[in-house]
């Protein structure tokens, strides 16, 4: 009799534990049942790249002085600067400039060091081609204005997590007018700037 009761006891315990473990295992699933997926449905929705995104490099031929600083700071000397020395004027004449984006690692060194700011990083990141040789952009291709995800009306641009309002995780149903969390540098400056003389005193003498 005792043995039989023990068996029933352990059976109930096991059944209870099985239920508990099921619940434990699925609790994460249940936790997420009520929220919508935050996945970006790529060709129809695209994320707006962040402010300092390093996409395709934009190049302005007219500003370039053919100094080759970009070549020197590049980890693999990638930019090809085709210039000839004009003997009469003793000036360099730039004929062509090209960067191969199949090889570029988008480190941004060339942009950082360019003395005339003729190179800049853009937010263009869609660089798929049929042939890898098409990734060798010459100065005309590099000089085109970058495309961005907000120009095509059939694409829904979505904000990245850091640019959403406070506490919001899902970019899908946020109106564009909602401000991002935190202040932009110029907003911080406005907030810091004393408005009147009274405030100025306060800022300069915080102990008063």
């Amino acid at each position, binding site marked *: 009799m005792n043995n039989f009761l023990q068996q029933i006891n352990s059976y109930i315990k096991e059944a209870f534990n099985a239920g508990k473990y099921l619940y434990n295992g699925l609790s994460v699933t249940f936790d997420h049942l009520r929220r919508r997926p935050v996945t970006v449905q790529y060709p129809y929705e695209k994320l707006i790249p962040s402010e300092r995104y390093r996409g395709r490099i934009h190049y302005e031929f007219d500003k370039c002085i053919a100094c080759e600083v970009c070549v020197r700071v590049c980890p*693999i000397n990638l930019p090809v600067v085709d210039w000839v020395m004009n003997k009469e004027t003793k000036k360099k004449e730039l004929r*062509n400039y090209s960067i191969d984006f199949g090889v570029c690692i988008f480190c941004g060194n060339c942009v950082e060091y360019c003395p005339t700011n003729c190179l800049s990083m853009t937010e263009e990141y869609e660089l798929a081609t049929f042939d890898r040789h098409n*990734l*060798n952009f010459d100065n005309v291709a590099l000089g085109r204005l970058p495309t961005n995800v907000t120009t095509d009306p059939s*694409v829904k641009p979505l904000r990245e997590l850091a640019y959403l309002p406070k506490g919001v995780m899902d970019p899908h149903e946020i109106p564009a007018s909602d401000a991002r969390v935190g202040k932009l540098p110029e907003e911080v400056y406005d907030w810091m700037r004393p408005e009147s003389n009274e405030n100025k005193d306060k800022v300069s003498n915080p102990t008063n």
Partner: protein
Amino acid sequence: MPLLLTGKKFHNDLKTNKCLAIFAPLEGGYETRLLRRMRAKGFKTFITSARGLGDPEVFLLKLHGIRPPHLGHQSVGRNGALGEVQQVIPQASELFNENDKNKLLWLLEGQVLSQSELESLIEICSNDNKLTIVIEMGGSRKLEWKPLSNYILDEFES
């Protein structure tokens, strides 16, 4: 419906206008379907992306020089910075193997091209009566197209 599309209207529009701006749904697949139908109608086709083209006319149709990157760290200076300029065949050269056939050049991502570059494409078409160009100018809910000249008028001159 696009699976059942016969491409007849497209073919007629292509014949009359020679240069079309097309707006295709973002999931893609329309270009290859239409290309197949145009091949069945006796076109020779070539598809490529407009992004990364230098001067489109020269890169697509003429012998042009490219400066390939050297691979690996080289000496800095005249030799390190520039290898040789390589003359390469035009990218659309396979269209011109058979001269008696109609040719269809399909350019993806035409949004990157400027107004004058688009106008130069129209001019290429009007100079060569066998050559037609279709250029994708963006996404759309459903497949639609219009003559490239009309697109330029709507987009840039308004």
